[in-house]
């Protein structure tokens, strides 16, 4: 009974995990522009893998050699690194952008400074010709 329940839980975790992993990559393919794309993988894939790892722990506990919580380490690792990686990649994308949001320490009133990034994307594409090979 418990085993069946656990199995059901595992399958659920798997389904959710795989869905989000897929979602991350799908966003990568579907969205236009870097800053649109990055939202999918950083959240979706990370959560997805987390779920799958959890599923794995449960699965191995039930069907395999016992409880191996060390896979949690990977989850921890991923959750620690994924946002920082996203931060860095955004930083990199920003550095390639023309007309990037100027540093608020040099502008008097930075708050509420909003830009639609459509023209940024255009600029970005213009730069891609030479900067990104």
């Amino acid at each position, binding site marked *: 009974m418990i085993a069946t329940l656990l199995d059901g839980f595992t399958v659920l975790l798997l389904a959710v995990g795989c869905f989000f992993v897929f979602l991350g990559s799908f*966003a990568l393919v579907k969205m236009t522009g870097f800053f649109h794309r990055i939202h999918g993988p950083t959240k979706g894939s990370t959560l997805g893998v987390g779920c799958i790892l959890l599923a794995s722990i449960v699965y191995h506990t039930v069907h395999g050699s016992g409880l191996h919580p060390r896979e949690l380490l990977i989850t921890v690792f991923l959750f620690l690194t994924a946002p920082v990686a996203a931060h860095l990649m955004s930083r990199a994308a920003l550095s390639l952008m023309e007309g990037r949001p100027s540093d608020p320490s040099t502008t008097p009133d930075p708050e509420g400074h909003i830009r639609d*990034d459509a023209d940024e994307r255009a600029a970005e594409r213009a730069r891609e010709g030479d900067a990104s090979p």
Partner: protein
Amino acid sequence: MRRRLLPSIPQSLTVFAFWLLMAEDFSAGNLLMALLLAWVMPQLAARLQREFARLGNVGILVPLGLKLIWDIVVANITVARQVLGPEANLRSGFVWVPLDLTNIHGISALASIMTLTPGTVTAELSEDRRYLLVHCLNIDDPQKMIEDIKRRYEAPMRKVFP
């Protein structure tokens, strides 16, 4: 004296747990090894880095963590909707979020949390470390969002990293 012997208790604890988790073996030998590493690693790290995180109210981390997990799940559902929906409806843009946090560890944690939560990705920390540049996938009221962030995450963070 304590700082010489155990420069950072959180780190020691982390390493200890990390080793035991990884080794999956709770024999005496392994415990000893874990203890040894828990003692040596922070010493080593102390040589390599300038400052350790000074922690304030750690207890607040538990509700924060729970809230975070919930937010992450919500974030993902939101993102799923946004990704699967028509892209043209999205109103994306950058926002400079002013920070009250001064502790770099706190800022890092906040930045990470913001990235993991709905529709935001932190892209840059201003040079004076007083603003975080955030990209929002869909945004109606930037001011509200800033306030949201400051309330939900920055406030607890300021307690953890005073």
